[in-house]
């Protein structure tokens, strides 16, 4: 399968935007504009970008607490996301969610969740909903290597297969649950093979290669959409930063980190597109400059945006008073 030049270019733009966005987040965090837990996606860009690009616009995406990239891939405006991180009323969740809880109803982004594995059954529920409403929309359900040891992971896989639902479970295996190496936390390290225990096809892909991720996901999305049931994809990748902004990541060796940086998905696609003649150097520079400007604009917008009014404290909790 070859991926159209335009699609490659779109994915490249997206990865560059994600990286620049996350760099901007790190700067704003250091400057005190962003608080709390903030989990960066730098290094893993190829996974969300390749996977979500294989979906239709009205398929559902649901993710974890490391969810900035997934919302950007759904085309939520960077301004609304940055403003959310700054805790402003113009944020995608009016400043009430923060880094871990990006949600965009209008773009079928069912949220980021802070409890490891917590999103998995919710994604299955969305797929059951599509099944019951006789729609062929699928759900892409992201999780990390750490979540594969949680009880709900197994419950979610079991139900998804039992009811043959259109769920693409995408494991972003970055090999570390905060500081715990997957080899010391999972009795069985081939996460994609855990799916087999539930009769679900499990696949593995190089999560540092966006074209490989895209190609694999196109195949899996098609399979699920056509009634094949759930599938699981393990994308092996690496986060360059610590688990969150407060984690220096000292549990990993310099040599290991350097090895993974050599596999960086962005220069990899740049090189490939140059070789294919899809872009020239000037075009790559232009894309970088666009991303820089977009993130700069988002940060200025966020900083200039108002904080939520005190009156917002009790808003959005209940829809109604149930007849009272």
């Amino acid at each position, binding site marked *: 399968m070859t991926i159209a030049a335009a699609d490659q270019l779109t994915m490249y733009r997206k990865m560059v935007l994600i990286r620049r966005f996350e760099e901007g987040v790190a700067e704003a965090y250091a400057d005190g504009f962003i608080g709390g837990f903030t989990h960066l996606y730098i290094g893993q860009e190829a996974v969300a970008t390749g996977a979500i690009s294989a979906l239709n616009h009205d398929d*559902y995406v*649901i993710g974890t607490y490391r969810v900035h990239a997934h919302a950007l891939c759904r085309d939520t405006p960077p301004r609304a996301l940055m403003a959310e991180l700054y805790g402003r009323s113009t*944020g*995608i*969740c*009016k*400043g*009430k*969610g923060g880094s871990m*809880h990006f*949600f*965009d*109803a209008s773009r079928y982004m*069912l*949220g980021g*969740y*802070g*409890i490891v594995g*917590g999103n*998995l*059954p*919710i*994604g*299955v*529920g*969305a*797929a*059951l*909903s*599509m099944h*019951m*409403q006789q729609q062929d929309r699928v*759900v892409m359900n992201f999780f990390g290597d750490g979540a594969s040891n949680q*009880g*709900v992971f197994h*419950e*979610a896989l*079991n*139900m998804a297969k*039992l009811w043959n639902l259109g769920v693409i479970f995408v494991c972003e295996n970055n090999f570390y649950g905060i500081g715990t190496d997957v080899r010391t936390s999972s009795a069985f390290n081939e996460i994609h093979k855990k799916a087999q225990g539930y009769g679900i096809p499990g696949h593995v892909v190089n999560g540092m290669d966006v074209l490989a991720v895209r190609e694999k996901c196109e195949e899996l999305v098609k399979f699920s959409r056509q009634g094949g049931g759930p599938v699981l994809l393990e994308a092996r990748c690496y986060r360059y930063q610590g688990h969150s902004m407060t984690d220096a990541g000292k549990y990993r060796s310099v040599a290991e980190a350097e090895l993974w940086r050599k596999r960086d998905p962005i220069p990899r696609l740049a090189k490939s597109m140059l070789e294919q003649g899809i872009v020239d150097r000037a075009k790559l520079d232009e894309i970088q400059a666009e991303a820089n400007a977009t993130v700069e604009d988002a940060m200025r917008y966020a900083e200039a945006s108002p904080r939520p009014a005190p009156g917002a404290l009790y*808003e*959005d*909790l*209940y*829809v*109604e*008073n*149930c*007849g*009272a």
Partner: protein
Amino acid sequence: MPELRYFEAVQRALAEEMARDERVFILGEDVGLVGGTFRATEGLMAEFGARRVRDTPIAEAAIIGVAIGAAMTGLRPVAELMTLNFGIVAMDQIINHASKARYMFGGQVNLPMVIRAAAGGGTQKGAQHSHSIESWFVNAPGLRVALPSTPYDLKGLLKTAIRCEDPVLFIEHEMLYNSKGEVPDEEYLLPFGVADVKRPGRDVTIVAWSKMVHEALKAAEALAHEGIEAEVIDPRTLNPLDMDTILASVLRTRRAVIAEEGWRKVGVGAEISSQIQEALFYELEAPVQRVAAADVPTPYASNLEKLALPDAQRIVDAVLKITL
């Protein structure tokens, strides 16, 4: 007016709402073929099919997670947890996900879902199967909590719960399932947050819900022989809680007893008592009394269980303490 048993009122409410609204469906352990451990969903699979009356694996967290995902994407699930004891397994999904989703996502999504669960002790089911833990759930903002005491209230409240756009925990008492009461054939809805005065009286206000309403009514009958007229108020929902009706009553009687089956320490009674004294401290003739379960896991031996759980006599004693 025809008489129905409490479990039949559940069946009736579910059947009516499922016939009225195609989006309503049931999921849970043994809800389909078996018709529910307490017969509450009997006949519904035959009437509405296995698609809408869905037996699930024993996986409480995923049952609730699936309900959340379905509610977010256009359906109106009624999830049965068999008993609230099993709901403790699903606490993460109920509290961390269902109750918070709307608020933390800035009001972008509604969760029109109902969680039904049987609760309560008194049948020698031992420490892990005799819970009245409504206080845990009332403590969490975002979750509506209803506890009907009669078949009439049950049907009207359950129909409201199913039509409510917010997540509702609907707690049914195990010992009430076979109790009978008049239930009209015609449709009616009972609003949340509106207490029902089960017996008027001028001397003391007894606030009780679920099975304790019946103990309170027995106590009121006994007290009447002593010349004490007790008013029995059933709030019917604890979130929202109709403090207006309770306070208006206490303002007249100047004495209050809160009777609950849950543990005394940090129970719902502590909250209601606190609100009464905050509002009416100078109007009270005596300290507000709490009647509740002993702060021990419910013991099996019938004599110890009887000692652990509150009853009519305990309510009488509490009333006498502040009226003599």
